[in-house]
């Protein structure tokens, strides 16, 4: 009950101040009637208004709705009598403010309007709706099942005998009729007769066929209870009243006809029990999520609103696209513990890995540079470092960057200049003095060898045993580096051959050997003019191929060397026309400073010589490597160095350059010995280990 001075209704927040005096009187009248059971309220307009208002609603209410209401009224009228006695008892117990909502009082005073609603003034918009509701209840109907003694809050105004809510018919409307007349969207809310028996039985659970169609399948009847529709506890109200109340609620909330759906919202209001806490009754309880009713009944849903069931609708089933498993790079997989070293499926994207190079097939690597484009010919392995143009460009860039960078050791003092060059200069001067002074001062004699080496003697004997008609082949495989030593070594042998008037043919496996030999023989040719012509002295030129050329020479010399240096046929003119094979020569003399060259001649050519002797003139540094061949008999003799030349000159008794330079050679050798000896002794006495070596010893 609102306070007299209240401006707004405490319940519905309706404005109470705008009411006119007659309206206020009217509202007060119907309220007073509810409290004191007063006689008929004042305000003759009120009955007229419902009638008047009934006229307009009657015009607006469709026929199907009117039929629904008539049925409800008839059902309620039957139950009113049974509840009248119980209502009197409750009225004595119920507080005064609650008696306002006594439906029995409403019966006697149909003009009374419930306090929760707006005032009953016809001019007031808040009361109009209530009066309209009263007018709608034009025909009293009996409803033995659904009659309530308690008036729900917000219930509409009833006629004198009935509660509008109670007048609502319980019987389900004719669904067929409703479907035919109702629009399509409303037909889905039409309740089937099968769903209403539960409501007719006074079940507390509210079954709204219209709403149950939208409920999910898993909802149970209990869960479908609406919190607003929860009935009071059985103990508070008489069983009969409760049953009636619940039945009224069920019928009210079970719109059997579409027309009744508009009125069910009124019946959804809770009844307020005076014994309970008003806050609990007014403030709705929190709705359990699980018990929340679905707003739509699944059975009455249109096809397009129904959820897609993959089981029932196989045609609508779409395969769920399965995501491809993520592929980690190989290097990350190896580090990841979760993968346990299992490699994931490789991705098929070409940009993830390269198809060439040392990292081919490994995911997550940057594509390298194709090196095949830079190598267009077969690679040759050499000691030189080969770089591509791109590598050179990058090295230049790196160098420029490094030059711009400040290094820490730039400010360091440079190391002090060493004075080793002085010692080098001294050694150089001494060496040159030892070479030139004996040449300038011929009075300085040398120590001649008393015994001749065996190899020198064999060489001499071999040359002496050569026949005069057979030519000798000389292989001049030396270069200019040791030309000085070899020139002094082979000149006595060459002179010996010229003295015996033996034809000489010479060739070389390098480009300068024949030229140097030809130059050194020019002085001897002056002594022996017969060798000035080509019939004694033939230059065969350059033999290509190295050791392969020697093999070819050994197989067929005429095919391998058909022409001489003058591009003339070498084997047609005498005395070389008798040479068909290499073994036809009187001897083979190899002049070389390299032991390997001598080995090639011995290994490749010697087997084809047969009985033809092979002589070698070699430098002193390579002589030990050829001594085994002499000891094995593969070569008949050899001359090594200046000492052998001096001995050969002594044997031929023709002293030449070797004998003249022996003193210089011996003095230089003594000087070298002295330098090594002195340096070694000084090093032994004054030993100062280097810092690097000292650390190594300590470590």
């Amino acid at each position, binding site marked *: 009950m609102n306070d007299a001075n209240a401006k707004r209704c405490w319940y519905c927040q309706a404005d109470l101040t705008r009411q006119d005096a007659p309206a206020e009187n009217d509202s007060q009248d119907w309220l007073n009637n509810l409290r004191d059971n007063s006689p008929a309220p004042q305000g003759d307009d009120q009955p007229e208004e419902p009638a008047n208002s009934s006229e307009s609603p009657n015009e607006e209410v469709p026929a199907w709705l009117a039929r629904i209401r008539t049925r409800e009224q008839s059902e309620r009228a039957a139950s009113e009598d049974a509840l009248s006695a119980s209502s009197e008892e409750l009225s004595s117990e119920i507080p005064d403010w609650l008696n306002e909502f006594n439906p029995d009082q409403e019966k006697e005073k149909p003009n009374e309007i419930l306090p929760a609603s707006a005032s009953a003034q016809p001019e007031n918009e808040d009361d109009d709706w209530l009066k309209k509701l009263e007018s709608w209840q034009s025909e009293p109907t009996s409803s033995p099942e659904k009659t309530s003694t308690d008036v729900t809050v917000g219930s509409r105004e009833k006629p004198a005998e009935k509660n509008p809510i109670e007048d609502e018919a319980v019987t389900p409307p004719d669904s067929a009729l409703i479907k035919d007349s109702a629009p399509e969207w409303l037909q889905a809310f039409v309740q089937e007769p099968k769903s209403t028996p539960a409501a007719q039985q006074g079940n507390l659970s509210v079954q709204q066929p219209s709403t149950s169609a939208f409920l999910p399948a898993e909802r149970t009847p209990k869960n479908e209870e609406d919190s607003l529709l929860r009935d009071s506890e059985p103990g508070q109200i008489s069983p009969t009243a409760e049953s009636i109340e619940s039945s009224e609620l069920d019928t009210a909330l079970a719109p059997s006809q579409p027309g009744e759906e508009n009125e069910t919202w009124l019946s959804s209001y809770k009844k307020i029990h005076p014994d309970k806490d008003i806050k609990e009754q007014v403030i709705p309880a929190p709705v359990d999520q699980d018990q929340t009713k679905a707003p739509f009944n699944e059975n009455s849903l249109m096809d397009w609103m129904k959820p897609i069931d993959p089981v029932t609708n196989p045609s609508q089933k779409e395969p769920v696209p399965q995501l491809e498993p993520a592929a980690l790079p190989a290097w990350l997989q190896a580090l990841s513990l979760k993968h346990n070293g299992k490699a994931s499926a490789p991705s098929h994207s070409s940009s993830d890995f390269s198809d060439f190079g040392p990292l081919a097939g490994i995911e997550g690597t940057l594509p390298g540079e194709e090196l095949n484009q830079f190598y267009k010919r*077969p*690679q*040759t392995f050499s000691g030189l470092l080969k770089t591509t143009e791109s590598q050179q460009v990058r090295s230049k860039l790196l160098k420029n960057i490094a030059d711009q960078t400040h290094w820490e050791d730039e400010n360091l003092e440079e190391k002090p200049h060493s004075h080793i060059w002085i*010692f*080098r200069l001294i*050694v*150089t001067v001494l*060496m040159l003095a030892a070479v030139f002074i004996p040449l300038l001062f011929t009075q300085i004699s*040398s*120590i*001649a*060898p*008393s*015994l001749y080496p065996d190899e020198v003697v064999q060489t001499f004997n071999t040359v002496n045993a050569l026949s005069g008609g057979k030519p000798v082949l000389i292989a001049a495989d030396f270069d*200019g*580096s*040791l*030309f000085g030593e070899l020139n002094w070594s082979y000149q006595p042998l060459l002179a010996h051959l010229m003295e015996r008037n033996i034809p000489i043919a010479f060739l070389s496996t390098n480009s*300068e050997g024949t*030229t*140097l030999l030809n*130059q050194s023989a020019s002085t001897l040719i002056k002594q022996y003019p017969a060798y000035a012509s080509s019939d004694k002295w033939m*230059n065969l*030129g350059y033999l*290509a*191929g190295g050791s*392969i*050329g020697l*093999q*070819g020479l050994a*197989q*067929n010399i005429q*095919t*391998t060397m058909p022409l001489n*240096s003058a591009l003339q046929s070498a084997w047609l003119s005498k005395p070389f026309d008798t040479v068909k094979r290499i073994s036809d020569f009187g001897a083979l003399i190899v002049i070389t400073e390299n032991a390997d060259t001598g*080995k090639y001649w011995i290994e490749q050519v010697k087997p084809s010589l047969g009985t033809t002797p092979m002589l070698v003139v070699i430098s*002193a540094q390579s002589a*030990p*490597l050829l*001594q*085994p061949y002499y*000891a094995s008999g593969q070569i008949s003799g050899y001359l090594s160095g200046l*000492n052998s030349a*001096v001995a050969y000159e002594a044997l031929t008794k023709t002293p030449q350059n070797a004998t003249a330079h*022996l003193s210089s*050679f*011996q003095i230089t*050798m*003594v000087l*070298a*010995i002295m*330098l*090594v000896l*002195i*340096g*070694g002794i000084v*090093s*032994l006495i004054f*030993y100062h*280990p280097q810092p690097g070596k000292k650390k190594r010893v300590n470590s």
Partner: protein
Amino acid sequence: MRSPLIPIISFIVGAIILAGYFFPGSGLAAIRTPMLDWAVTLSGVAGLIAIINLVFGVHWRRLRDSSKDYLFSGLVIFAFLATFALGIFLGPTNPDYQKVVTAIQMPIEASLMAVLAITLAFSSLRLLQRQHNWMGLFFFISVIVYLLLNSGILSFMANIPSLQEVVSSISLVPIAGARGILIGVALGSLLTGIRIWLGSDRPYNG
């Protein structure tokens, strides 16, 4: 994957050459000789190509790119072209043309060898300082002894029979060392040749 064609060809050719060497009476000489001639011709052509690559591939690129010491590369190219042209016109046996070798190349090589001799002589002073161990000492002693023997100043010792035998024995030591070196080189050459013949080593990028 490398092509197996080249190793197969090298194997067949090597087998023919070896068989012709070990069996001279067989008809393989008729095959071996032309093949050797082809090899000689190819080696000559390869030498010519190497020279052209050196001149126009290396020095010409340095001259074109103006890299470091590009002037020397230009001098090399000029000297080559001049020598080549003179050889074509004068001939290799021309005494004036041969002065290119006798007056330029030979003195340069001889000078480098002389510098080597001086350097070795100076290095011998610091021999024991660098190798202050037993091996260095033995090397020091051996250098002294063989320099004395090869110098000839101890030739008077040959007249003394006891000393002559000592000197002869000492002279045989290098021969023994050389035999060991030659045996090792021969075995290594044999093994390398077999590996190349069988295709284990492919220096020809086959």
